[in-house]
């Protein structure tokens, strides 16, 4: 994290003084509704909720040459939950990315590598901690309408507190996961882009339920989760998750867009701990 912060600080200092540096700012404001926020398996434990979220990311991009760009950015994002305020959170961090293009024009394939780190602060502090991501992706444009990209992201989270419960350790929110995704964008018209993606995620999942023997047997850590209520427990389970996303993006001029998306998460946990979560998103993006 310190290394990333140092890079961003260097970018903020060097960027304005460097002729080939270009500043950029991305912002978003939106709502999200999840039908199973706690990723619970049993119907009696499933809780849905909606959140209002906003984020801003900005920094400098350095054009190293005609094909390669290095960017350094600071990130700030927050979400406020309606029914489960303990999940409301603020994330502050930094991202550095390297983008390379193999050829000329909009159809040339590209490759992007990134590293990010963020401090996570929740209203209910059991989830507080650090999140790190490393990723690689590539893609290209086919014809005038189709964009295809493949991505890999490794994510690791470290929680501040590790209060256990009985025989199991309490490092529930110390999680590791690998995610592989494929995405297709279709430019339906000048203003409308349709997109769909599939993500395969393998790793730790935190599932919050009332106490039950099945999940206890299959979990590797647990801790009380007051964000969901006094009798809820967060369990760390090993799961593969399939995520299907469908969305549309309407351009509002050249630097903003209105976006809606639906996401179906199918979690297949070890020991038959399966769950489903439907996520609906809507919001506005701006980019300068």
């Amino acid at each position, binding site marked *: 994290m310190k290394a990333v912060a140092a890079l961003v600080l260097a970018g903020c200092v060097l960027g304005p003084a460097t002729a080939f540096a270009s500043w950029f700012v991305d912002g978003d404001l939106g709502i999200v509704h999840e039908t199973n926020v706690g990723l619970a398996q049993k119907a009696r434990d499933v809780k849905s909720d909606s959140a209002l979220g906003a984020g801003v990311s900005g920094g400098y991009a350095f*054009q190293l040459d005609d094909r390669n760009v290095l960017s350094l950015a600071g990130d700030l994002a927050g979400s406020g939950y309606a029914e489960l305020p303990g999940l409301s959170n603020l994330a502050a961090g930094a991202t550095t990315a390297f983008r390379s293009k193999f050829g000329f*024009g909009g159809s040339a394939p590209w490759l992007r590598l990134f590293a990010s780190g963020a401090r996570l602060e929740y209203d209910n502090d059991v989830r507080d901690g650090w999140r790190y991501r490393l990723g690689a992706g590539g893609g290209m444009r086919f014809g005038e309408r189709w964009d295809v990209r493949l991505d890999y992201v490794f994510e690791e989270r470290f929680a501040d507190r590790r209060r256990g419960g009985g025989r199991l350790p309490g490092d529930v929110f110390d999680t590791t996961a690998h995610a592989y995704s494929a995405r297709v964008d279709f430019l339906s018209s000048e203003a409308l882009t349709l997109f769909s993606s599939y993500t395969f995620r393998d790793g730790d999942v935190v599932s919050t339920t009332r106490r039950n023997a099945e999940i206890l047997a299959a979990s590797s850590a647990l801790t009380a989760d007051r964000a969901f209520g006094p009798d809820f427990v967060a369990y760390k389970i090993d799961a593969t998750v399939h995520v299907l996303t469908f969305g549309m993006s309407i351009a509002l001029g050249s630097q903003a867009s209105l976006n809606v998306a639906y996401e179906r998460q199918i979690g297949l946990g070890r020991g038959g701990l399966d769950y489903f979560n439907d996520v609906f998103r809507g919001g506005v993006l701006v980019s300068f």
Partner: protein
Amino acid sequence: MIVWLVALSLVLAGVAEASTISALVRDQRNEPVADAVVVALPRGGVPSVPARTGRETVDQVDKEFIPYVTAVLVGSPVYFPNRDNIRHHVYSFSAAKTFELPLYSGTPAKPIVFDRPGVVTLGCNIHDWMLGYIYVAPTPYFATTRQGRVKLDDLPVGTYTARVWHPRMEGSEEGTAKAVTVGNGATEVVWQLTLKEDLRPRRAPVPGQRGYR
């Protein structure tokens, strides 16, 4: 005195024989079309004229080519000033002119000379949505529409083949040819084009594609 009278009569004769094509270009919804190039080719052959002496420029402003369409006479030099405070990398692979201005800021010292008629598509290899066109005209009688209208002035009286071109038009420029006989005064020519959508790489943000683009 006689010399002055002869000169005046020659000038008046010239004015009398110089006329105008007034062009109107509309799309399939009857909306006026901007950035359409109207050209008039004399039936008797294109006169040999030097390139216009004005300084032709295609600016890069806020990561866009300005103007979107520039029409020049064949043989004209064109400058590409970068008005942004970042670098651009301008290129074209068009048959009418292949060139590259590697990553630069400011104004390159030497212009690019467009020595073959045709359409030159411009791009920037840093910002894929940047798209511009240079129409290299084989005749000195051309102009680009603003709000659908344009006038070709000072045409010698005679018969012309008038055509129109637009980057997003369906069909070919040749398919728009009209025989136009120009006499004294203005002759109006109207075209209705079917325009395709602008499907260049999108500049507006899309979810999941954040960061510098």
